[in-house]
């Protein structure tokens, strides 16, 4: 948002309290997850177990991957409204071609990442609004998904099923996977020099251009990464559900945006956090269904719970930011 709130002059405050507020703000995603976990533990202590987590966080892996995908475009000040139908498309390809004609499946999936990269180039070169382009693309992916798999069905490749039903000792697989995803993306985006450039393209594009970096390349890279994680998300989803449906990923568009924002990401300025995004995705996955079920709230209100959590966390963030100023 570029709104200049008139009259909000930064108050001078002791440096210590500002730093504390910033730390609190950084901890907010973890705090919201902890709060949801405590609520679940209080309502149903048996859920906090190896098998409980395996069940509750079952769908958290694809949601976390889709959230990371969304995070990359948001880091470049864009938005992807097609990620949900893209995940659905990938799911349909995974459940059909990837099993029956592995080579074609691989080519199609890599090609779809290429389409994402091209979209990034198109959006940059023609200076197009990403919202409209990706909204249009959401129809394309949905249509392709229906063409690949007209009726719900198909079957996940055996190796994918084996990976997704992996049962490591002590730590439930979804938690292990979430840790791995967060660590890899955190290292890549926050700790490497090109990661800084990628985030910089959202933070201060003009400065980056003057320093000699190609903004076209950063946008293509960010969109290609979104495509890559979208593919991973679709494959993970089919590894869990074992069969596909053209509409299987539709809810992921909004979930992924909500996850990024819950995780402390901002729409402008390249301010994103991979660890926060994964935590945000876990919070949404837990709050949407297990928590409501334990609270005996009808599933009608599942979507509302997501909206309410988003508003509560954002309100908390405003309260903290006010102290930060």
């Amino acid at each position, binding site marked *: *948002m*570029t*709104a*200049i*709130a*008139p009259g909000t002059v930064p108050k001078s405050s002791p440096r210590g309290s500002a730093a504390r507020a910033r730390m609190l703000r950084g901890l907010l995603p973890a705090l919201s997850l902890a709060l949801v976990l405590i609520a679940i533990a209080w309502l149903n202590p048996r859920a906090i177990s190896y098998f409980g987590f395996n069940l509750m966080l079952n769908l958290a892996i694809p949601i976390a991957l889709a959230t990371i995908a969304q995070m990359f475009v948001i880091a470049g000040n864009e*938005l992807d409204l097609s990620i949900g139908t893209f995940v659905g498309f990938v799911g349909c390809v995974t459940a059909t071609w990837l099993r029956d004609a592995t080579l074609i499946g691989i080519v199609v999936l890599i090609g779809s990442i290429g389409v994402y990269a091209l979209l990034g180039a*198109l959006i940059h070169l*023609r*200076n*197009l*609004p990403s*919202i*409209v*382009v990706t*909204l*249009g*693309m*959401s*129809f*394309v*992916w*949905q*249509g*392709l*998904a*229906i*063409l690949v798999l*007209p009726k719900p069905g198909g079957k996940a490749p055996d190796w994918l099923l084996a990976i997704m039903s992996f049962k490591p000792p002590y730590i439930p697989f979804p938690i292990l996977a979430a840790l791995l995803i967060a660590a890899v993306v955190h290292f890549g985006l926050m700790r490497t020099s090109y990661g800084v450039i990628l985030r910089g393209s959202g933070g201060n594009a003009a400065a980056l251009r003057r320093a000699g970096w190609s903004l076209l390349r950063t946008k293509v890279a960010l969109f290609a990464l979104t495509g890559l994680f979208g593919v991973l998300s679709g494959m993970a989803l089919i590894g869990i559900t074992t069969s596909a449906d053209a509409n299987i990923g539709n809810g992921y568009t*909004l979930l992924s*945006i*909500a996850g990024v*924002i819950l995780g402390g990401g901002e*729409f*402008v300025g390249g301010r994103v956090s991979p660890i926060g995004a994964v935590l945000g995705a876990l919070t949404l996955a837990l709050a949407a269904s297990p928590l409501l079920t334990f609270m005996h709230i*009808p599933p*009608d*209100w*599942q*979507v*509302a*719970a*997501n*909206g*309410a959590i*988003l*508003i509560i966390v*954002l*309100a908390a963030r*405003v309260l903290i*930011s006010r102290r930060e100023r």
Partner: protein
Amino acid sequence: MASLRMVLEKPWLWSFVGALVVWLATIAFTGGYGAGGMVTAALSLAVFTVIVGVGQMFVITLGPGNVDLSLPANIGLASAVAMKVMGGSDAMIVVGLLAALACGAAIGAINYLLIRALRIPPIIATLSASFIIQSVDISYGRGLQIKPPPGFADFTNWQVLGVPVLAMLTVVFTIGAALALQRMIYGRSVLAIGQNIRAAWLAGVNVGRIRFLTYTLCGALGGIDGALLAGYFRGANVDIGNEYLLASIAVVVIGGTSVAGGKANVPGVWGAGLFLVLLLTMLNTFGVSAGVRLVLTGLIIVGVITAAGGEKPVR
């Protein structure tokens, strides 16, 4: 010649040209059969896109990041509210329309409240609001009398000499919207905010009030649209507004309104609305499958946006 060039430079012209081309392609395919009926059908359906399109246009004109993603949920809830209040009785039509209008306006006002109080981008504010509205609608709409009163259903389907009355009324409404945009202080303020919010504020524009009015207006238009849709399709349901998220944004952009804000175009919304509806009719006439139709719709929208191009950012 000079006047011809002036007309050709109008950004809204191309949306009408596109609509005409699609229409000609379709009647060429059918050999002229159903050409008039197609226009009538296109006008009746385009009305719903145009109404929300105008609301979305005012919001988008406020500047980058301003967009109302809660319109589909808003339309869904307002259609249920309208049908519930009308309760199938002709005497309650006006009350029902007012209820839908109030419901939509309230949603718009809440949207702005979230944007203002939480200082979050409108996309996220309207998105979170739409999550909640959707649930309210699902829970409220369950087991509800959703049929419109016969008088209201007839009114929304009423045609005079092949021209839908609703379309005529919407033309009057869009002329009003164009006047409000170009000739009234409110419209000029919206444009000024979209061009440079800080300059507008320094020039004495009450930025907060104008933005509040704009979001409320957009919500109210979504509400009235929901009621009319429920009348036209003879029933309300939760998904009735789903297609209007893409449609409302697409008609604004295709119609020549700048996504960067500060430049709006009302006639283009009509052209783009007709274009989208005729496009769907064409693809249906050609008998393509649902999958191909979706792919082509998406590709054409992306193609049109690419051809129209984005504005170079003003520095």
